[in-house]
């Protein structure tokens, strides 16, 4: 029993009325973990019950701790009939398993029901006692940290970047089991939600094991996706970059301004970001056991004695490109060298996949960017021989990754950065796509590389970046420097794509789409170098639309729009509004889409976002006009100014959300763990809830509320790298029904404002979701 999970149910509030006669509720709570269930007493006749239960203790394996969520069900006691469920709360206890993350989950969490939405709140306390278990053959990977952020998290430094990790688990989708015919929609939704929680827990554990095998202790750029394949199953897969991270200790954070001569690790230029000074020992052997004490107090001479021969590259590779005093520049020097050294040690091309999900790199790290590489394949789901086994899907992805790898080679590059994978499923057709930016990671590595550039001509490159390393940040998947052109270009390219769509929509066979999409990608890419992202995503959406499939989900686009919004707002409203982040859930419309309206929609999104930004600005100007006058218009997002308003009166902690990996004007002091939640909402009274718009509006607001509550319970005050995806939306207006599935992920963090410490003010940053769907009937 290597772990003990303890949960305490404190109280509830705002519960719904379950007994019409008395207008009250007799609530009690079931706490379930694995197969063990505890119950609280019934707290009779109250909408604000005070259970104040004992500690419920679950003695479990740490494997289960990782896989299972803690399941809290609030019920209404009924003497004569069956107890009615009020709602549930799933708590992912993964953040508690890592010593550096949160230590306790405590706070008010919304009670959620898949039919009724949020129904009151419950106050819980959850703790985990882990016993050290040094079993070599263990199946768990407790302690491996996960980050959605696609750069090295701010308060860590990378000692080693190990490389690509991926995993995939498959299960039968409860929605398609035979039993679904006889059970209620609620039961089916709950079975599905629970299964997905379990599967993502299992997935994380398995990825964690791989990371431990590689000698790492963290996964950065963790990207998890769900493929709802329907009859053939439910796939949860994830990719990430395995790293060995070391926390920058808080004393260093505070006192790092003074350079130290004896301890290299203190030789930092800026508080808050670890930077390894030249000559820092990097253990080149098996890295794991040494990493903990490597950097704390070694004198230089001592450290050289530990160096292996390969590490002589470090000195020469220390970036010349202006380390400067900028914190962000300094921060990444560590991973750079670590990675390089590691690469020289085991040549990158010998790896299975030289892919990195990271998108932000230190200056000088990427020496050359070859261009975008993407690969697609169309699969038919009903041709899977044994749907319950992951092998088939593994093979599919293998194929695609190999293709990406060979594309990269063709571009004369040895690695792919900003790598991501996605799928679109429409009935029996599944389109897998992967993309990234082929890159050359260091000059040294170039020399070692066996490839010659002649190969380029043998394959038509999809797009070549000629800009070199300065442009790295504007690359695929990276939001950092897209700039306003991105927004602008969307407006231009959207009609263009649509025209092409029309001319090809006559293609009858799915098989033709794959080459066509390549063509389209190429064509679009050549339009503008800086807008690759846009084109890719648009074309991905297009391919599926062409297939005349009833509904498809283009989640990629959401990512893009979210990024372009934040950028747009940065440029536009920087004076008084901080980065306003947006998550867009784009639901592609029904068959025979009017493509030009799609284009309009794209542009109208941007327009609308503008308007929202203006609304915010107008609101802010009223209250903070003096502030605004005082501040010069800053350039770029990082300087966005916020007003400092004190919200002492609020009893609910303010939680910010942003799809960025950082919070402008603030310093992240602690990563509390990954937030990875999945929600299903269904309604049988669509009209009464205000149609699809009203339904989704409520649902998204609820999802936000739940994310905020969970972050606050972990002790955090923001979510970074927030993304909302995998939105399956089905409606049936005739039956007055609709169903929606949303997956959200991000990193819960605690931040402090750079300027502050004297004031506790938190101005809320807006994260917004914009959902849009245009479905015109024929």
């Amino acid at each position: 029993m290597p772990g003990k999970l303890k949960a305490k149910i404190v109280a509830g509030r705002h519960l719904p009325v379950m007994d019409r006669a008395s207008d009250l509720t007799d609530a009690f709570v079931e706490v379930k973990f694995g197969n063990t269930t505890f119950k609280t007493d019934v707290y009779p006749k109250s909408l604000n019950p005070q259970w104040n239960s004992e500690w419920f203790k679950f003695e479990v394996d740490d494997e289960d701790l990782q896989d299972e969520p803690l399941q809290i069900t609030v019920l209404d006691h009924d003497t004569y009939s069956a107890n009615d469920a009020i709602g549930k709360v799933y708590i992912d206890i993964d953040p508690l398993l890592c010593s550096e993350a949160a230590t306790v989950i405590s706070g008010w969490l919304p009670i959620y029901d898949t039919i009724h939405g949020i129904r009151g709140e419950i106050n819980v306390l959850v703790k985990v006692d882990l016993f050290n278990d040094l079993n070599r053959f263990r199946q768990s990977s407790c302690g491996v940290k996960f980050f959605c952020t696609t750069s090295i998290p701010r308060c860590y430094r990378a000692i080693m970047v190990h490389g690509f990790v991926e995993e995939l688990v498959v299960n039968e989708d409860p929605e398609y089991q035979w039993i679904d015919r006889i059970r209620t929609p609620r039961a089916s939704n709950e079975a599905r939600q629970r299964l997905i929680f379990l599967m993502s827990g299992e997935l994380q554990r398995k990825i964690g094991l791989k990371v431990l095998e590689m000698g790492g202790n963290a996964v950065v750029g963790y990207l998890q996706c769900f493929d709802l394949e329907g009859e053939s199953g439910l796939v949860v897969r994830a990719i990430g970059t395995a790293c060995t991270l070391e926390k920058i200790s808080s004393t260093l954070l505070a006192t790092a301004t003074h350079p130290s001569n004896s301890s290299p690790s203190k030789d930092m230029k800026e508080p808050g970001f670890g930077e390894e000074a030249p000559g820092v020992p990097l253990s080149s052997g098996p890295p794991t056991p040494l990493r903990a004490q490597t950097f704390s107090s070694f004198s230089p001479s001592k450290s050289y004695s530990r160096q292996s021969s390969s590490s002589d590259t470090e000195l020469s590779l220390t970036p010349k490109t202006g380390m400067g005093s900028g914190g962000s520049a300094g921060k990444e020097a560590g991973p750079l060298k670590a990675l390089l050294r590691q690469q020289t040690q085991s040549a990158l091309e010998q790896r299975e996949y030289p892919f990195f999900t990271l998108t932000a790199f230190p200056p000088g790290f990427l020496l050359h960017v070859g261009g975008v590489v993407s690969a697609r394949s169309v699969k038919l789901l009903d041709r899977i021989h044994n749907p319950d086994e992951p092998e088939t899907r593994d093979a599919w992805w293998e194929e695609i990754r190999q293709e990406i790898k060979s594309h990269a080679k063709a571009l004369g590059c040895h690695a792919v950065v900003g790598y991501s994978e996605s799928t679109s499923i429409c009935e029996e057709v599944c389109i897998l796509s992967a993309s990234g930016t082929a890159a050359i990671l260091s000059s040294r590595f170039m020399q070692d590389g066996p490839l010659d550039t002649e190969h380029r001509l043998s394959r038509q490159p999809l797009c070549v970046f000629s800009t070199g390393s300065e442009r790295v940040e504007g690359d695929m998947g990276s939001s950092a420097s897209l700039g306003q052109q991105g927004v602008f270009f969307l407006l231009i390219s959207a009609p263009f794509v649509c025209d092409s769509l029309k001319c090809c929509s006559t293609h009858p066979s799915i098989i033709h789409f794959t080459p066509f999409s390549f063509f389209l990608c190429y064509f679009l890419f050549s339009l503008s170098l800086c807008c690759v992202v846009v084109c890719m995503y648009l074309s991905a959406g297009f391919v599926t639309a062409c297939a005349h499939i009833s509904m498809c989900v283009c989640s990629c686009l959401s990512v893009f729009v979210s990024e372009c919004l934040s950028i747009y707002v940065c440029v536009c409203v920087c004076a008084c509004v901080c980065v306003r982040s947006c998550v867009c859930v784009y639901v592609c419309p029904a068959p025979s889409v009017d493509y030009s309206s799609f284009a309009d929609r794209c542009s109208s999104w941007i327009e609308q976002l503008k308007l929202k930004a203006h609304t915010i600005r107008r609101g802010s100007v009223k209250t903070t006009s003096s502030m605004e006058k005082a501040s010069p218009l800053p350039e770029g997002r990082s300087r966005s100014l916020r007003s400092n308003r004190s919200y002492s009166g609020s009893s609910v902690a303010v939680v910010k959300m942003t799809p960025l990996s950082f919070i402008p004007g603030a310093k992240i002091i602690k990563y509390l763990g990954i937030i990875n939640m999945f929600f299903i909402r269904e309604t049988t009274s669509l009209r009464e809830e205000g149609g699809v718009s009203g339904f989704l509006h409520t649902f998204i607001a609820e999802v936000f509320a739940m994310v905020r509550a969970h972050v606050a319970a972990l002790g955090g005050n923001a979510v970074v790298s927030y993304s909302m995806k995998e939105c399956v939306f089905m409606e049936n207006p005739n039956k007055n029904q609709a169903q929606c599935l949303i997956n959200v992920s991000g990193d819960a963090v605690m931040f402090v404002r750079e300027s502050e410490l004297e004031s506790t003010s938190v101005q809320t940053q807006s994260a917004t979701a914009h959902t849009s769907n245009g479905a015109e009937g024929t």
Partner: protein
Amino acid sequence: MSTELDVFVGNTTVLDEDVYQLWLDGHTVSDAVRIRMEAGALQECEANAEILHSDTMDQFRTFQMCERLLQSPSKVANQLLFQIPPHHQTMLIERYYEFDSVFAREVLGKKLSKGTKKDLDDISSKTGIALKCCRRQFDNFKHVFKVVEELKGPLVENIQRHFLLSDVLARDYAAIVFFANSRFETGKRKLQYLSFQDFAFCAGQLISYWTVGAVDNMMEDLNVDLEKEFLHDLKDLKVLVNDKDMLDQHKSLVCAQLRGKIKVFSEMEASFKNLSRALVNIASKLTHTKDFRDLFIDLVEKFVEPCRSDKWTIGDLRLFLKHYSSSVRMLEAFRHQVIWDRYMGVIQSCILKMYHD
């Protein structure tokens, strides 16, 4: 047929005060869009009508979702569904409970029941306030009434505590609750010239000096019922008009004080006995529910109108009432000084408030 899905949800709920006001006023989305366009929202934001429409839709939907919370404002601060900055929360609540005094004037003194709710159509067309808006205001009255009805302690503070309203607004609600509870007659034609603010002032006076709560804060139940004992004691004041000597003495005292100070001296002298009789009779009959409900109409018919027809100025009236009530002290045979002062204090300020065209 085309269905469209177009939603914008913020982590921090985005609110525009102007749009909120449009929503509160009961406008439909298309109305609101038109008004916003006329107000120049398009120029300000460089947006087109379609976007303005969808923005308005979003906000209206948000307000609609907030409405459930606003009905019990104490929940607004600790609910989790919307992340609303506190100053916006206050604004939302305050605005939601604000009402049109024209509307309040119409409902004043009526039973806050289903029957009255049916009349809202008429009130709406009479006042020009949208029906939806009338309904909201009416439901607010009813809701506040229902909540404070069962609470102990001072009315205004209860309203403030439960609905987190500003002092001014809480006082107005107290007046509405008071009138609805006491069911004063306010609808007669002769009372039409009085505004809601006039009545609210009078209600404030009555609540402060005549109710149970004014004497004892710890009373059970709603403390806006008038103190029975006090009303009963008012009957003793009859002696002022029934005792001929006392009436004459009172008159001569007042006349001596006012001679040369007011323009309408002769009219005052002539009507003194009638006026005095009117005030004392009103006092003595307050124990009867019917007469009590007619308090305001009686004051107008028997006191305000005679004075007005004699063209008293407000200054004259003030002086007269001052000396009329104070000179009673010099009547040696009169032994109900405390009751008299408590009665006249309120009546005096009410009459002065009501004395206008």
